[in-house]
């Protein structure tokens, strides 16, 4: 199956980073698609957690919001939101926090708050939600986003969620004991932080992607690993799983089809 879009490659490459052993706190959008493709292919036992309190959820369609009924219907258990953040996230039970970003810098710091000045924003974005603590309390953080000069910038306008700060041991200096961003998956490449500087470095290019294409869609000067790999293309199973999931999702969201399973979880 040679024909796939950059976005499909991104979602599938991101899904491959997850395992059945992971307990993953799922951000909405691109992370949610990747996490569910992983669950439906090579990582059937992965525990997916959404901040609405659903633990061990296995949705048949991708949720539009983090609190769709589908998440609760298919979850092992659903806990109150304070418990979610206190016992499960702050308590250190999440291995991977999977986040998207409106703006990202080379040290994995994320802005989802404002474009421009906080007091007089050019664009008022939704804000941090769960991300500021997901970024510091999860064992490690994966980030996925499509590349653009507007999104991947030399300096973000607001530090919503802390990555590696100014790089190096900045997390440690702030008393943060978790690893922070360890993986960035874009529509063009796979990036990992340099072990010393913590600057995201391209380690693998997706099929057909050149170094120039990565640089042209990134606002900072891109570093490439000495030994640059090529991301294996999507397999037939990965691609059909993703496309089926998207087709089911589109049908469910546009049609307003009844999804409430009356009595399904009632006591």
């Amino acid at each position, binding site marked *: 199956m040679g024909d796939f879009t950059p976005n499909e490659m991104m979602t599938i490459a991101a899904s491959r980073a997850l395992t059945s052993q992971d307990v993953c706190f799922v951000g909405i959008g691109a992370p949610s698609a990747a996490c569910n493709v992983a669950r439906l292919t090579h990582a059937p036992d992965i525990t997916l957690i959404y901040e609405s309190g659903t633990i061990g959820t296995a949705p048949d369609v991708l949720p539009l919001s983090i609190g769709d009924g589908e998440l609760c219907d298919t979850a092992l258990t659903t806990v109150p939101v304070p418990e979610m953040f206190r016992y499960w996230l702050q308590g250190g039970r999440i291995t991977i926090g999977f986040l998207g970003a409106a703006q990202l810098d080379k040290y994995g710091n994320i802005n989802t708050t404002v474009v421009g000045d906080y007091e007089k924003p050019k664009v008022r974005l939704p804000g941090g939600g769960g991300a500021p603590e997901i970024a510091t309390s999860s064992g490690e953080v994966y980030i996925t986003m499509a590349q653009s000069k507007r999104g991947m910038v030399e300096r973000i306008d607001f530090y919503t969620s802390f990555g590696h700060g100014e790089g190096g041991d900045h997390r440690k200096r702030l008393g943060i004991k978790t690893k922070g961003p360890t993986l960035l998956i874009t529509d063009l490449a796979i990036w990992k932080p340099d072990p010393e500087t913590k600057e995201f470095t391209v380690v693998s290019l997706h099929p057909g992607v050149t170094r120039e294409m990565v640089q042209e869609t990134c606002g900072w000067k891109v570093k490439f690993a000495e030994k640059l790999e090529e991301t294996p293309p999507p397999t037939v199973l990965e691609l059909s799983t993703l496309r089926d999931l998207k087709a089911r999702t589109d049908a469910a969201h546009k049609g*307003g089809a009844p999804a409430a399973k009356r009595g399904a979880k009632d006591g």
Partner: protein
Amino acid sequence: MARFMPLDEAVRENLKDGDTAAFEGFTHLIPTAAAHEAIRQGFRDLTLIRMTPDVVYDQMIGMGMARKLIFSYAGNPGVGLLRRLRDAVENGWPRAVEIEEHSHAAMANAYEAGAAGLPCAVFRGYRGAELARVNPNIKSVICPFTGEELAAVPAVRPDVTFIHAQKADRKGNVLVEGIVGIQKEAVLAAKRAVVTVEEVVEDFSGLHPNLCVLPHWTVTAISVVPGGAHPSYTHGYYARDNAAYLEWDEVAADRDRFRGWMEENVMKAGPDDFAARVAGLRAA
């Protein structure tokens, strides 16, 4: 002690101009009917609290009811930004709105502290996060036992909380199930609590012993409004109207279209209109 009454009365008796009010719901069980009643009654200068202000807060802010917003994620979930909120923050239309912004962890802890009667919440958060620079209500404390520096935020104590729930029994005990969100904490943290429910049942006997039940003496008023969470959903009753959330993005994009929509669907409508809105979303 919970009293059953029509929604217009419940809102009139429990909400006042200048109040700090929470219309809570975490994607699920959003008290839309109560918010629309508040819009019809035209309250002003409210401080609105909610972890996830979405469409109903976009509507209240667009109608100029809010002086201040305390929140942790202001978006149309899965769709995009809140365009009326953006217009208020970026352009001061129809009036400027003061913002007190937190993370979800902070708000959840703050509600819990409010319910627990504590003055503040303490948690491990905001490390390296810039919200601590722009929000003076984010401070830190040192753990007296370990010396660890922890974040502290003031407890949330609304004058009134509005929630939507599945059902009440005849005494006024309230059952919430599914994604229970922050509803219990928001009710217990508030001075007054108004609950809209899908239905009233004789009693709660025979139900699972650990279900989330708010005893009748924690609730001020109950109004029966079938469909009252639409376009949000009520677990076990009807599904989320995702198409309506997608449509809102277009309605809210334009000031005139917004005002026209509000006139048609809120000002000229009432609590009884909600049942028809969810008719096609109910499970067979």
